[in-house]
């Protein structure tokens, strides 16, 4: 297996593919992630998503990609009873994360904007046949993590189409893999905890992690992070450091991991167990809870 690395969607894309298809696989992935970023980035004023966010309550014709992303986002919100909320774009921008994270001021000035709950996804109107989407006024989509997950799923499917199997594809730590040939070892994945990493074997499917180890900043002297609690409109203040979830696709894993993080350890564990989604919930003190069949891990050697 050989490794492909490049930057897209504000993060590092890593793929493991058979060496014989490296050139073609890299070309396909660079093109695919580039298209996802150009259409769905909320940091690019000319992206299709930004244009939709500026549409101010009027229907807008959208591409199949954006339509599908909005559909999946709303389905994810509904499936988590709103714990995953794709309509917090204005909220997180008001908290200071209104540009690519590398450009976010480490101590941004306080914002006069009042915190308000999310839930705008319930009022989005979609006409799938005509590819029309209408966002209510004041509702801005942020498809960040979900878009990365969907791009990973799409990328893995594309790799399969060109014969690049088995393969593992990761966007900033949210990953999916096709099954290795029978008799071969499954993929070995190091999952971040509070202190150190834990190894699990992934034969097929996806793992996504939502947590606050990164993308933190200060605003008006207050600590901020990017995982917003839709109930308050503020950064989630629960007891979790991270939530890692395995699912059949990276998009599903991303939705579930974000929801579990927002819900906190007790409710998050209940949510994952009821959906039979294996998860690893790590408290802020580093205590780890395995849920719904998450296997006993091996500790990774210190990096």
């Amino acid at each position, binding site marked *: *297996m050989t490794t492909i690395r490049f930057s897209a969607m504000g993060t590092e894309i890593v793929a493991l593919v058979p060496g014989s298809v490296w050139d073609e696989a890299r070309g396909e992935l660079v093109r695919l992630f580039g298209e996802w970023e150009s259409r769905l980035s909320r940091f690019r004023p000319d992206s299709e998503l930004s244009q939709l966010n500026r549409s101010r309550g009027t229907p807008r014709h959208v591409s199949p990609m954006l339509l599908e992303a909005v559909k999946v986002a709303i389905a994810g919100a509904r499936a988590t009873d709103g714990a995953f909320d794709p309509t917090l774009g204005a909220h997180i921008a008001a908290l200071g994360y209104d540009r690519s994270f590398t450009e976010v001021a480490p101590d941004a000035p306080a914002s006069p904007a009042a915190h308000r709950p999310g839930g705008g996804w319930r009022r989005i109107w979609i006409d799938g046949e005509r590819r029309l989407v209408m966002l209510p006024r004041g509702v801005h989509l942020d498809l960040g993590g979900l878009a990365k997950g969907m791009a990973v799923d799409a990328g893995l499917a594309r790799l399969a189409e060109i014969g690049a199997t088995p393969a593992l594809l990761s966007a900033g*730590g949210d990953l999916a893999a096709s099954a290795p040939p029978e008799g071969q070892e499954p993929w*070995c994945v190091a999952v971040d905890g509070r202190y150190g990493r834990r190894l699990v074997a992934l034969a097929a499917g996806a793992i996504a*992690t939502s947590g606050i180890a*990164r993308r933190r900043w200060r605003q008006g002297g207050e600590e901020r992070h990017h995982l917003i609690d839709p109930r308050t409109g503020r950064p989630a203040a629960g007891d979790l450091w991270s939530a890692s979830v395995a699912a059949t696709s990276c998009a599903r*894993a991303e939705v579930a991991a974000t929801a579990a993080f927002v819900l906190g350890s007790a409710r998050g564990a209940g949510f994952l167990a009821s959906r039979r989604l294996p998860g690893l919930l790590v408290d802020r003190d580093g205590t780890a809870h395995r849920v719904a069949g998450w296997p006993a891990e091996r500790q990774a050697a210190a990096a």
Partner: protein
Amino acid sequence: MTAAKRVALAASLAGFGIWGGLALAHDPRGTATPAATATTPATHADSSSSDDNGFFDDSYGSDSSSGLGAAPAGGAQLSTPSAGAQPQARSGAS
């Protein structure tokens, strides 16, 4: 937007069943399908998840047009790695 464009937009919206440009949560013609796909969501064996529309089930959105990708046969498969296995990838906050 000019007044003329607003009138034209309102007229076109009427054809779509959107009255006055209001953000409707339903579609009178039955064509608006938030979060719906052509695939019938699988029924989950656990009734406690019956309110999630099968989003997390393997068969949900398994048609080729879905943005959820093709689910692997048998679902996600996790296990304890064998002794000596070396990490090939990392999952963590990004």
